[in-house]
């Protein structure tokens, strides 16, 4: 609106020249802009998350998960689950109800394309070592590469307090287990008892 007010002859020339040059721009660019849906962009939507999840999704707060570099499908599934009150309701369920599926996808793509920055956190090396073994035996099949970002979420380097919350929710039945996970966690607990979860969490936290 205001930019229109300031257009002068020079501005018009510039606009025409830009239009002329646009013809030279590889066509997928204009195709992309044609596909842009109305409403806020994925970037604009994702920027609003940073107050809690850190700039571009790299959280510096230990209770808030890093979401940078996250698989977009995992992101969308998580947001849908929150929207349907399927995860232990605290705050994300209230926020998720504001968005459409398309907006979740747009945000998901934004975060997927961000580099994950990890921050050192204190961990217990003994537990981490035990956790590494448990991970290999019970978790690595789905959480590949030690739990690096992939199609089963980000565990490696994830904030430990957040991981503890998540495991508490699974174990207390407040979050639905993904396929096979409950059996695997039960088996890990059978092997290592009360140390199993702290060991796994310390292992993920140790990957910095």
């Amino acid at each position, binding site marked *: 609106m205001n930019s229109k007010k300031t257009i002068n002859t020079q501005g018009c020339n510039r606009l025409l020249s830009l239009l002329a040059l646009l013809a030279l721009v*590889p066509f997928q660019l204009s195709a992309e802009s044609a596909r842009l849906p109305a409403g806020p*962009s994925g970037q*604009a939507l994702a920027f*609003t998350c940073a107050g809690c999840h*850190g700039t571009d999704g790299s959280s*510096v*707060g230990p209770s808030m998960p890093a979401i940078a570099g996250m698989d977009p499908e995992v992101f969308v599934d998580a947001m849908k689950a929150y929207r349907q009150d399927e995860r232990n309701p*605290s705050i994300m369920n209230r*926020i998720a109800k504001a968005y459409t599926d398309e907006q979740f996808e747009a945000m998901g793509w934004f975060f997927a394309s961000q580099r994950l920055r990890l921050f050192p956190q204190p961990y217990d090396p003994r537990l981490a070592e035990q956790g590494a073994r448990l991970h290999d035996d019970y978790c690595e099949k789905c959480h590949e590469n030690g739990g690096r970002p992939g199609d089963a979420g980000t565990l490696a380097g994830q904030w430990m307090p957040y991981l503890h919350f998540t495991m508490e929710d699974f174990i207390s039945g407040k979050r639905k287990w993904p396929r096979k996970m409950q059996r695997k966690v039960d088996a890990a607990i059978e092997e290592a008892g009360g140390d199993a979860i702290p060991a796994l969490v310390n292992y993920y936290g140790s990957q910095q």
Partner: protein
Amino acid sequence: MTPLNRRTFIQAAGGGAALATLGFPSLVLGAARRVVVVGGGVGGCTAAKYLRKLAPDIAVTLIESKPAYTSCFMSNEVLSGDRTLQSLTFGYDGLRGYGVEVIEDSVVGIDPERKRVQTAGGSRFDYDACIVSPGVGFKWDAIEGYDEQIANQSIPHAWYAGPQTQLLRNQIESMPEGGHVIIVAPPNPFKCPPGPYERASQIALYCKHHKPRAKITILDAKDAFSKQGLYIEGWTKLYGYGTDDSMIQWVSAAQGGAIEGLDASTRTLVGLVEDFQGDVVNIIPPQKANAIAFAADLVDGDWCPVDKRTFESTRHQHIYVLGDASSASKMPKSAYAANSQAKVAAAAIAARFQGKEPGDPTFVNTCYSIVGEDFGISVAAVYSLDAETNSIEPIPGSGGVSPANASPEIRKREVSYAHSWFKNVINDMMK
């Protein structure tokens, strides 16, 4: 996202050399555009950082009167003793790392015709766009007998974190065993709607352990307040609210809580119905946009009207007003809101510099309050613009406050979320 950014443009034009032959290189690439930011608080810092992130070719100068930022958010924890002021204070080197020029000076005027900012130190800064995020000022004439000097010396407002926060903390620590603390809460709208009630809670948290017979009275200019149900739930659980022995009393306006005057020498507050005397008195005065907003003719009444698609002032073109000083209904005056608005304004300015229309805005507010040990509560909202009414509207069916009577484990988690939120929001604004 950017159909034609500088790099693709050069590529499209067949390399930089080709541009020169077209005869308008400076027009196309733009002589470096300059944005001057007034105020290095939440809105100003976030906008400066995001401008540099979105468009590194924009020169950004931020002018702030203080050498470092001390955040108000979490400053109530200084009153319980859970935190030091030091832990709330952050320098501007992080912003400098993004290429923002940070200048310590006070802005005294903005000339919208010349597009020029004037400082107390005698410097002038020309701008293509100016961002103003100066926070709130106080209506000193609202409570007779209260003024800035008294606030600095004996009856702090502590509504800017800093020496007055420490003064209030010291007064609470040194008051007698069964001492009486009075908090005077302001009328709407004001900075941080749940803040006075979190303050009462944090003082109660200290007293519970150190002065268990102390009383805290909130004298309110209102008949209702933010997150009221949840505060009362917490106060009932933690501080005996509702019993004769309650540590916290809340006196609504209807019950005589509205205060008209102060006798500073006896720490007596003059109400419409009765007077109140305290050992420690904290007056949070009624508020308006900070002084520079008035000096720069950006206000209509107490606050600065803006086009909510961009946060550009509706009074002067090329000036954008963010945060507490803006009239951003229906967003509250909070750090999260200022942070969210700043990104909308930064994106709008970057788009306009490229000759594009700003996109549709989206806003979020999330605000935690710590009522006591292991008892955190929150309010959240996601908003979109109603362009027809120029109103920022919560998206129906979303947002709201923490559930009533939630499990202790959820309440405890919200405390840890509050602390993580603090780290992330500070990081997002200036690191």
